């Protein structure tokens, strides 16, 4: 019997995990503004959790979702309401709120049984708008569009407050989410997802229950997004409907596309790439450009972001993970590689 991970090197995974948890100390040693870096990394971590789920849905199962920020919102709001208004402990809310988001996944997964492709993308986008409107409509719990203050997470009697502590909380769950995503992708469920993506008819003929696995894909994806939402609500301490814009959903799709669809590591890489690009690299460039131009800072920032994205897609259409695969093959074949194939 061939092992599930036999074709991969596993020894670097513990090294990577140790590196993830040493990173704050390294950053603190290197830079004075390490707090900002940690803030950005925390945001990236939350998005990574969500994008692993989105990749399972859109990348592996091929069900395009343009409304994933809605699942994030459901997770965030349900956790905020459960903890602050019903007095549920944070640890329990970490289990309950993702379940709520997963149930929403069921609700939206139901029409998805018949709808596919761009139609599904638009349906989920509409779902995003409807959820946003629902949050505003349930004013007595959510304070409408005014936003909601959220308490800091309390785990085992400790209150987790600063970005420094949040980092360890978030990245513990990032590691869990990535490992879980890998396990799901490599399991029977993951293979069923990929079969559905490649051909629904063939999958059905092979005995895969389409309805069950499509609903499952939405449920799992909702769970991941809800999880990210809980962490988002409690670490950012304030949520409002503006945080869960339609543009955010489109950014999520951009992130997994840049990373390369249907690979969990691709989703992680893409998320890190986009978030770091948008929050660290572009502001640096922007400061340089401000010597010559004098305009609205936000416009320059989105211009640089758009340009980098555009050039990246033109020259590297397969995404970061595709680039990495090409590089790996290049080094494997090293002295005997036909050069023109790898440029």
């Amino acid at each position, binding site marked *: 019997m061939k092992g599930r991970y036999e074709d991969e090197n596993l020894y670097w995974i513990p090294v990577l995990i140790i590196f993830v948890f040493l990173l704050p100390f390294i950053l603190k040693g290197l830079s004075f503004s390490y707090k900002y870096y940690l803030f950005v990394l925390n945001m990236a971590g939350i998005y990574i959790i969500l994008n692993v789920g989105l990749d399972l849905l859109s990348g592996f199962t091929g069900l395009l979702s343009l409304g994933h920020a809605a699942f994030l919102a459901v997770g965030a709001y349900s956790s905020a309401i459960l903890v602050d208004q019903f007095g549920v402990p944070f640890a329990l809310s970490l289990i309950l709120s993702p379940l709520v988001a997963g149930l929403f996944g069921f609700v939206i997964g139901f*029409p998805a049984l*018949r*709808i*596919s*492709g*761009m*139609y599904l993308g*638009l*349906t989920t*986008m*509409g*779902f995003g*708008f*409807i959820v946003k*409107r629902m949050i505003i*409509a349930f004013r007595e719990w959510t304070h409408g569009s005014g936003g909601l203050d959220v308490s800091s997470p309390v785990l085992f009697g400790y209150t987790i407050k600063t970005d420094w502590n949040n980092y360890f909380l978030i990245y513990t769950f990032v590691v869990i989410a990535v490992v879980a995503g890998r396990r799901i992708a490599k399991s029977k469920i993951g293979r069923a997802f990929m079969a559905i993506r490649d*051909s*629904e*008819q*063939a999958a059905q*003929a092979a005995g895969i229950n389409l309805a069950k696995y499509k609903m499952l894909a939405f449920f799992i994806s909702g769970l991941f997004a809800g999880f990210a939402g809980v962490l988002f609500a409690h670490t950012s301490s304030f949520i409002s409907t503006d945080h869960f814009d*339609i543009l955010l959903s*489109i950014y999520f799709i*951009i992130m997994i*596309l*840049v990373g390369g*669809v249907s690979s969990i590591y691709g989703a992680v890489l893409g998320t890190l790439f986009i978030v770091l690009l948008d929050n660290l690299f572009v502001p640096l460039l922007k400061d340089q450009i401000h010597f010559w*131009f004098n*305009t*609205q800072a936000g*416009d*320059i920032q*989105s*211009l640089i*972001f*758009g*340009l980098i*994205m*555009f050039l990246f*897609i*033109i020259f590297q*259409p*397969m995404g970061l993970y595709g680039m990495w695969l090409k590089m790996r093959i290049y080094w494997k074949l090293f002295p005997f590689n036909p050069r023109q194939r790898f440029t």
Partner: protein
Amino acid sequence: MTDLFLGLTQEIISGIALGSIYALIALGFTMIFKATEVVNFAQGELMMVGAYVNFFFVTTFLSAAGTPTAWTFLVALGGSMIFSVLFGYILDFIINRPLKDEPIFSVIMATLSLAIIIRAVVAIIAGPISLMPFSPFGDSAISFGTIIVSVLDLSIIGSAIGLVIIFYYIFHYTRWGIAMQATSEDPIAAQLMGIPIKRVYALVWIFSAVVATLSGILLAPRIALLDTSMGFLGLKAFPAAVLGGFGSIPGAIVGGVILGVIETVSMGTLSFHFQWIKEINDIIAWIVLIAVLMIKPDGLFGVEKVKKV
């Protein structure tokens, strides 16, 4: 009760005007999608650019000529048309050609980042302040008995109908139009029949840029404010295109008109008469869309494809 019906009739007419603009934007999407299977997320931004360029021309000619005449607007319209043809050609050159054989996802990404770029460039050039676009008709209105209709709305409906007829003629009765149809049916077979599909693709992008510009020019005076958030209206044309059936040109038009009417009516009189509509009037288009798709998963006019393994 007569109040309600009077209001409804008036709003339905103005809804048809809004819907014709949605239909035009959706027409742009649909053409690109039919020919190249690319979903152009930058369509709303193309529309915004068109509106801005037209505004620029109109103000330049006004400051040169002094008083506004019909010629000012016509010459500005011509200028914007020339610009949009060039713009569409450039878009084909920078997006469609380099990404020809890449996965569709990459092309969609390219249009998404293009939308970001266009919005930023326009914001940098035009500044953060919203502009007040001119309308050649001012705010005059015609009254039919008790129903009052603004000339602007009528002109929008009229030009939309005219455009649709022109496009219908081009698609069905000219050489290039038939070449476009053949290409969208089967690019490889079309190429084997001697159709220069590269040029056809360029033409499709040009057409869609022209339609976007025209819809921008029509829409700008109607929403009375011109700023970069106009690009987001492109997102509203998406449900229109999907409602009618993605890739179907009559579908795009019908879907656009239906959504325009629903939106206007639910925001107006009905909100005064029924309290619960007020809660949902900004998402009612989406609710209708989801309801329709649950019954007809390929939209109203979409053709159900037989899928084979």
